[in-house]
């Protein structure tokens, strides 16, 4: 049942992650993983990167860890929504 490896753009992956978090308000990693269609290890890398550039924030709520968008993350999501179609036209895969 080996599926074809899928190529996606980093911008597309970032868009899906930010969109998943924005739709929930705050989302656990597993929820983001399914919404963004990413394997867990790749998601972890991306979340660490997004946290390091200040787009998402990790918050602990009781015994669970959630992710929320920072104001820069909201700004990035808005920018991605505006430029998604242009990036697709240029050849990036979303």
């Amino acid at each position, binding site marked *: 049942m080996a599926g074809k*490896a899928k190529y996606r*753009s*980093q*911008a597309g992956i970032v868009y*899906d992650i930010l969109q998943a978090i924005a739709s929930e308000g705050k989302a656990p990693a597993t929820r983001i993983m399914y919404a963004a269609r990413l394997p867990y290890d790749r998601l972890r890398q991306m979340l660490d990167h997004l946290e390091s550039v200040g787009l998402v924030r990790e918050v602990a709520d009781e015994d669970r860890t959630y992710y929320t968008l920072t104001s820069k993350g909201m700004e990035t999501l808005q920018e991605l929504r505006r430029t998604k179609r*242009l990036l*697709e036209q240029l050849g990036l895969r979303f």
Partner: protein
Amino acid sequence: MYHEVMLAIALLDALAAPLALLIAYKVFALHRLIGSRGLLLLGLGFSALSAALIFSGIAGYLAYSEAQTTVEPEFPMGHGWMHGMPHPWPAGEESVSWDLVSYAGLVFPLAYALILAGILVESVEVEEPGSQGGVLALSATGLLLGGDAFSISILSMITFNKLQYSRLDAGTIGYMVMLVSHILRLLAVVTGTAWLIALAEALRPSSLLAIVAGLRGGQSGGQG
């Protein structure tokens, strides 16, 4: 008549250059937010494309001005790429405008190479990580031919890559028009066909107009 075509080419380039710069600006803005190297390369590619279009536009305008101030025949002879062939450029081989076209002929493939590198670096294989790379090669008229040949191969790769996953949208058509313009210019220089080079020069900026026009077709979005 032919010289007015040169002026039209200059105007088309003048219209397309800011569009390429606008695309670069938008991509750089995203790069600043996300920090992706692929977007940086893509932005640099469109900046280089804008520079090449400016070179090309100035060359078109100079060819038009040279024609207005000199009494050269409409199709100057004697310095063509092949013996016995007329030179495809109205101002001839020794003109400053042809030199500028040659320089632009180098900047175009550099721009396409950066765009291709940007698309490849930006692409990630979600299940198994992989990578791809590219090479750069360069060659006055001969230089232009080398540049066009390189542009054709890079644009073919970009178009093929895009057709693998998307339908024939405005972006794909834009890249195809760019590809056709370089094929036509290569043919024009080899055969010494003046109208063909004019058509090729006019087609290239039109490709960016096609991409931008395609953006007006609707808005996509939604959740993954």
